[in-house]
């Protein structure tokens, strides 16, 4: 088994003006995905949801004071990372199969699947 990171990229809920009914439905879909993974015996090693505020640090200069800091909110960032899960899977195909259950494809969400490297000690 290998570990994969499923990274959720897309617009944030904040920017979408969802109604309470829609939010409950969307939440229910996430809960169902979680339940399905559990039922399928998928081992979830971790995961987090991320706040929508983003600070970017950039600039080639070595001097810290010359770096550029940019603060933005979810509404301004199109490709926002909203969170991630780390799951165990046989291979990338298996990880893809797990990612099919992600509930926000219909609102333009994307799942990026990355295998986590294992280093020999």
């Amino acid at each position: 088994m290998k570990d994969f990171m499923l990274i959720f990229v897309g617009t944030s809920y904040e920017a979408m003006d969802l109604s309470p009914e829609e939010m409950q439905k969307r939440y229910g879909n996430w809960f169902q995905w979680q339940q399905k993974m559990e039922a399928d015996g998928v081992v979830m090693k971790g995961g987090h949801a991320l706040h929508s505020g983003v600070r970017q640090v950039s600039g080639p200069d070595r001097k810290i004071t010359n770096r550029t800091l940019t603060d933005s909110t979810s509404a301004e960032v199109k490709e926002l990372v909203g969170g991630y899960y780390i799951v165990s899977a046989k291979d990338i195909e298996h990880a893809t199969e797990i990612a099919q259950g992600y509930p926000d494809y219909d609102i333009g969400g994307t799942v990026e699947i990355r295998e986590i490297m294992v280093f020999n000690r």
Partner: protein
Amino acid sequence: MGNPKIMSHLFRHQYGKMIAALTRIFGPSKLEIIEDAVQDTFIKAMVAWREGIPENPEGWLMTAAKNRAIDLFRKLSADEKRVLKIDSGTSAIALGEVFLESEIDDAQLRMIFMACHPSINPRDQIAFALKTISGFSSKEIASALLLKDETIKKRLVRARKSIASLDLEFKIPQGADLPPRLNRVLEVLYLIFNEGFHSGRKEILVRKELCGEALRFCQMLLNNPFTKTPDAYALFALMCFHSARLESKVNAQNEIVDLKNQDRSKWYFPLVAIGNEAMSNAVESGEFSTYHYEAAIAAEHLKAKSFEATDWEKILQYYKQLFEINPTVFNMLNIAIVKLQIGKLDKAFQNLEKIQPSDLEQRAYLYFGTKAEYYILKGDKKKAISSIEEALKLVKNDVEKAYLQRKKQRWENQEA
């Protein structure tokens, strides 16, 4: 929804409760911030609950919303804060008590009265109530009322502005102020109900939701000792009786089915029983409102085992009494329709002659539809068809249009 542990519509109903409780603390002029706080809270819950629902989801939401509102107020500029005054008058209660179940009910009732305040434009009242008490989004309200999202957004802004600029009190009116204000509340609830019941929308779900909300609001009135008046009971009964027939009004092909052809076995009798119970409370005082007569008429229809078995004489009697206290063209038209049913054709025509179709406004097509019925019963197919064509020109609702068209075709295909 697939998640068995969370009640359906929990978010939506909780939205109304949270808005009302927070309005009680921070005051109606701060509604915009309160709505933002509640919205943020649900977004937070959507993520925080992914791995499991908290023991007490309602309590979780309420606490999170309160904290979020306090957060948002902290971020306000000093200037904005100066305007903010937390309600500390005689109606102020300890902060913790605001979140007791009974106090939340009370706060929602205050919200209903504020939504139906006479200084708010009547059209804005419905949108505002559906947003603030029912937790519908502007998009959902627009779709339910067959209006543009922009229109609803404007109405909501206007309602909020009126509330803030007039500094409306967040309370249930008392003493002599109560009866007229309660009357207006009942009117608005009946309007919301009718938006659902007579909707041009084909989706039965949306229509059921509007009717359901009107019933829910009315139930809130009946839970309070000052607002559970005979009229409120009668309106509740009336809405129960109508709702019992909602499912059978439209067939599987989304076509309107008239009373005559409805499958009476599809009527939902548990609701009729609830309506009957409300009706017995409504008639105790012996003073009858329009809702009493309308409920009595609806009950009479439900009592009949078949369309033919309907006691039209009794219904006519009720309509006449209704007309006495509420002489509208609509009630006159209904009298004419009932008279056609019992074969009093000429008398029905006399009633029709007293009606100016334009007084029926967007329902003027009903007048011509009834006139067409009169002519067909008289055996004058030519005049019947020209009347129904008149009706077809005026009808806006697609479902009703299709109904009239089918009727016309049937008549045209009949042998002369």
